[in-house]
């Protein structure tokens, strides 16, 4: 294995679930003889993450993202395969490892409701044995970055969801971890709070060089933070590479948006598939290889009628959606 911070090789996790049909008879039958079924939550994935990288971990619900994060943080034993984080086998949960990592979950809180976060920070300081001066420094930095000044002295129950998430972030980073697993860190937050959390994560990564693996349903999170993405589906790795190349690999077409003076009447279907039409603004889907040539023809043919034209990759949501709904054409590495 290399000297990567996170190394995962053929990691697998199978959950055994008991199944039964509805109805009393079925319940009784199942009580006597359980119908069990194995679910491959993670079906052999391999990847590595270098120090300081921010990697987006994408996949639909049930793809195995959280299961993978839980294995990497040490909460779950894998059914098979290997993983090392900072050189440790995570599920041994050695203190030396736990000391250097954090798992933040957007939908769960580790703060005590009734007491102010500042008190919880103190408890965490003692648990992680953070020396007083570095504790002050860390809390000072986090307070500044997340604008926590007033928030930490109010009981957690009195904070809004967004405020709580900011405080939650601070609590998870008291020990200045070298690796952070973020599971849906912006879930349920309003747009402006999402943006602030994103800015914080980017700035934190820049300042501390911490390695970050992040799952999110919001593509904006991923686009803003991650140069590299890992896409999994049905527990298998579909794509691992630069975010910029994802569209190229996963979507075989480009989008041409042409705006015309008299667009309402124009028929551009000879240039590509018309997917949207909004007044003079017409959106075309065109095969990736021939997109430049089509765009040139459009400019040539339409001349002055054209006020604007652009050639773009399809929106990342759409690419991902295509991947997950099995429409993918083209090859993943």
């Amino acid at each position, binding site marked *: 294995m290399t000297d990567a911070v996170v190394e995962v090789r053929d990691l697998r996790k199978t959950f055994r679930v008991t199944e039964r049909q509805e109805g009393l008879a079925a319940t009784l039958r199942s009580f006597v003889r359980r119908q069990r079924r194995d679910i491959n939550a993670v079906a052999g994935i391999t990847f590595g993450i270098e120090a300081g990288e921010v990697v987006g971990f994408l996949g639909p619900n049930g793809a195995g993202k959280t299961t993978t994060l839980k294995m990497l943080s040490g909460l779950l034993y894998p059914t098979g395969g290997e993983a090392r984080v900072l050189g440790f086998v995570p599920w041994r949960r050695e203190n030396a490892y736990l000391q250097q990592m*954090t798992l933040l979950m957007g939908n769960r809180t580790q703060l005590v409701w009734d007491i102010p976060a500042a008190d919880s920070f103190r408890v965490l300081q003692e648990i992680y044995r953070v020396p007083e001066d570095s504790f002050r420094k860390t809390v000072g930095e986090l307070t500044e970055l997340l604008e926590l000044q007033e928030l930490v002295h109010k009981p957690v129950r009195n904070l809004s969801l967004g405020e709580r998430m900011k405080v939650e972030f601070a609590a998870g980073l008291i020990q200045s971890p070298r690796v952070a697993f973020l599971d849906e860190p912006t879930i349920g937050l309003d747009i402006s709070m999402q943006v602030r959390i994103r800015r914080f994560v980017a700035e934190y990564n820049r300042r501390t060089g911490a390695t970050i693996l992040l799952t999110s349903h919001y593509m904006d999170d991923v686009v803003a933070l991650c140069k590299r993405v890992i896409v999994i589906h049905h527990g298998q790795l579909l794509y691992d590479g630069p975010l910029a190349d994802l569209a190229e690999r996963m979507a075989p077409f480009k989008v041409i948006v042409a705006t015309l003076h008299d667009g309402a009447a124009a028929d551009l279907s000879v240039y590509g598939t018309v997917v949207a039409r909004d007044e003079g603004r017409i959106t075309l889907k065109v095969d990736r290889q021939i997109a430049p040539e089509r765009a040139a023809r459009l400019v040539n043919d339409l001349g002055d009628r054209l006020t604007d034209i652009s050639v773009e990759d399809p929106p990342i949501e759409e690419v991902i959606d295509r991947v997950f709904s099995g429409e993918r054409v083209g090859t993943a590495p």
Partner: protein
Amino acid sequence: MRYLRLLALFFRTELAYELEYRTNLALELLQMVVIVTTSVAAVLVLFNYTTVLNGWDLGAMLVLLGCFYLVQGFGELVLQPSFEKFMEHVRLGTLDFALLKPASAQFLVTLRHFQVVQLAQMGLGAVVVIAGLPRVSTLGPAEAATFVIALVCGFTLIYALLLALSTFAFWFVRIDNLMAIYWSFLDAGRFPVDIYPGWLRVTLSSAVPIGVAVTVPAQAISGRLDLIGLGLLVVGTIAAFFLASWFWRLGLRSYTGASA
């Protein structure tokens, strides 16, 4: 040492919280005084009609009652709030956070929360013990030492039992009723365990060691506990603690699916 510092820190944060609700605090204190006073009065009334209850005279009964409040107070001081939160953590999945800390998860979960006001109950219990003492025997250093040992064993037994019971939360998730049964059993400790009929006595001293936790310290301070009895108590307590901790770890494995 580190764990003691942590314990003190847990205590301080919860103290600050309770002090914020002064009225509630005052009412709880009042309630405690009323409960302790009436139960002492009940014992006094009882001993108007008799001088001895299966070998327990008034002084011994007062000491026993004091021990009961000491043990119950300890249970409500830290065990009840912590174990309630523990089961909530299992239900909500927030136990994950405790498991990912570089410290004993069992410690972080089961001794995490305090109802500081319950110290007053323990204080009242101590007062009742002291009130009963002069009627019992002369308190020598030997009795005092065995009393302290027996009381610590009593606390530990209660802890071990609660730990074992709450472990079922890993499989059944909701076990609030089980805990309610436990607290009602604790009430039986108000009386010396040897006045109960055989089957109940056995239950109260083995499966539910509340009888032992309360009665034995009371016996110790009144000089009625011999060294063999004390030895048995200590060995039994240590065994119970390790057994319960083992069971808890077993439950934990099923929580994390860590049964590789």
